[in-house]
């Protein structure tokens, strides 16, 4: 299937020279990257490099110490509370845990953003919710409570909720973590289909490298507080950069060290 993808030259998100510290710990030291419109971007990198943090910075849940993050040309960190909440209506986010509201049914969870932000009457609202649930294959689970669903199903309901308001961008935080091969396949297909059918700009943070690269159009690798690689998955595979090579091949030692910094063993024992 071929679709007309928007021009890569007009990124949806631009990140410029971002410095972010948590207490004393430096997370980013001058991080710059861009997320192309209408494509699937993968954010990869070793654990603890702040991939999820980047999603939270884009969503304005965290603010950088310096630098600029623009979403569709709007500078996120300069926004007042109300304007920020308005901007977030244009983004969906799928959290690692699903983050469904435990006291609401599947239907009410998906209906929640619609009830808050639209004035649809009950009949139309039901129709929209059922369509969103159909898209993730869970129309049959409409009356269940979140606790009655498996982890993978919860994530799919959360996905239906994230696309309820037809956002322009959706951010996935570790969507494949802890999934069996079938669940993983389902989610991979969903991410790809939603991107193609709705033209959603998609950002996927994931550890499942091969699976993520198989659907991604653009890869941003974060390591050592900055972007270590940015480009297409093919370019990443072909890269000679020792850091990228170590990461792709899963070698324990290289630019990212296996040993936590310590004095020589002989001095310690």
């Amino acid at each position: 299937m071929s679709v007309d993808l928007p021009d890569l030259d007009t990124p949806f998100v631009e990140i410029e020279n971002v410095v972010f510290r948590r207490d004393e710990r430096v997370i980013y030291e001058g991080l710059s990257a861009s997320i192309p419109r209408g494509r699937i971007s993968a954010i990869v990198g070793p654990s603890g490099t702040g991939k999820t943090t980047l999603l939270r910075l884009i969503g304005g849940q965290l603010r950088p110490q310096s630098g600029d993050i623009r979403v569709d040309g709007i500078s996120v960190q300069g926004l007042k509370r109300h304007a920020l909440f308005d901007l977030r209506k244009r983004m969906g986010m799928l959290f690692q845990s699903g983050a469904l509201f435990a006291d609401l049914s599947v239907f009410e969870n998906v209906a929640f953003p619609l009830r808050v932000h639209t004035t649809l009457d009950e009949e139309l609202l039901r129709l929209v919710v059922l369509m969103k649930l159909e898209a993730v294959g869970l129309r049959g689970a409409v009356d269940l409570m979140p606790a009655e669903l498996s982890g993978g199903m919860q994530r799919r309901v959360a996905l239906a909720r994230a696309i309820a308001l037809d956002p322009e961008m959706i951010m996935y935080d570790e969507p494949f973590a802890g999934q069996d091969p079938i669940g993983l396949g389902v989610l991979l297909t969903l991410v790809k289909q939603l991107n193609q059918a709705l033209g959603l700009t998609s950002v996927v943070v994931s550890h499942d490298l091969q699976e993520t690269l198989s659907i991604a159009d653009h890869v941003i690798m974060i390591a050592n507080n900055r972007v270590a690689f940015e480009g297409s998955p093919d370019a990443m595979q072909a890269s000679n950069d020792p850091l990228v090579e170590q990461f792709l091949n899963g070698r324990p030692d290289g630019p990212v060290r296996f040993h936590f910094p310590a004095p020589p063993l002989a001095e310690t024992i």
Partner: protein
Amino acid sequence: MIERIRAIGRATLTQIGDLGRASLLLFQAIAGRSRVGVHWRLTVDQVYAVGVLSLSIIVVSGLFIGMVLGLQGYTILSDYGSEQALGQMVALSLTRELGPVVTALLFAGRAGSALTAEIGLMKATEQLASLEMIGVDPLRRVVAPRFWAGMISLPILSLIFVSVGCLGGALVGVSWLGVDAGSFWANMQASVDFWNDVFNGMIKSVVFAVVVTWIAVYQGYDLVPTSEGIARATTRTVVYASLAVLAFDFFLTAVMFGEV
């Protein structure tokens, strides 16, 4: 020495930072315009959760405290042959002190801890972050209804506590120990002043409601989102809220009844 001064400075800064964050949280939660219809329904739900569900513990405690007051009061007053003043003693103790204070302490244990744990769990399971990303302010949606529910529930619970306590006192004093029912109730009616006793007790109750609920929602919202963090924050809520209630009680009593 320098290290010790540094530690004191750090602790002071942390406390001031905490107070600032807590004030900001309360201000952002309740100030400004809100969607009255939706928030009214959420608040009613919370009044049920923190108020109605606390009723049983409040009624049972009120009854027993009233009964103990009746028993203790009778043994002391009968030494002076003035056991007919039992109604007055029971009612004044309850309206001025025990009603507001004990209700607030029980409320901190029953409802305050539940509020902290609930908000904390919502934070740990990313439900608060998810609300934010849907474009809904969790301070308005989650914190504000719980705060108002506490403000509404605690004074009412306190009134119920006092009423049940008076009945408990009467049960022991009149039905068991044989104080004359007429003098018990008449003395109570003659000595309890609405503004001086009942209204002042209510003011205390409202202040305690602000303190307890504020501490509970702040501790829940600000905790470290792990199982250990939730456990610590829940404990902190009960400890801080109880101490704050007792401290405020002293100051309020000094202001209200200090000139006597």
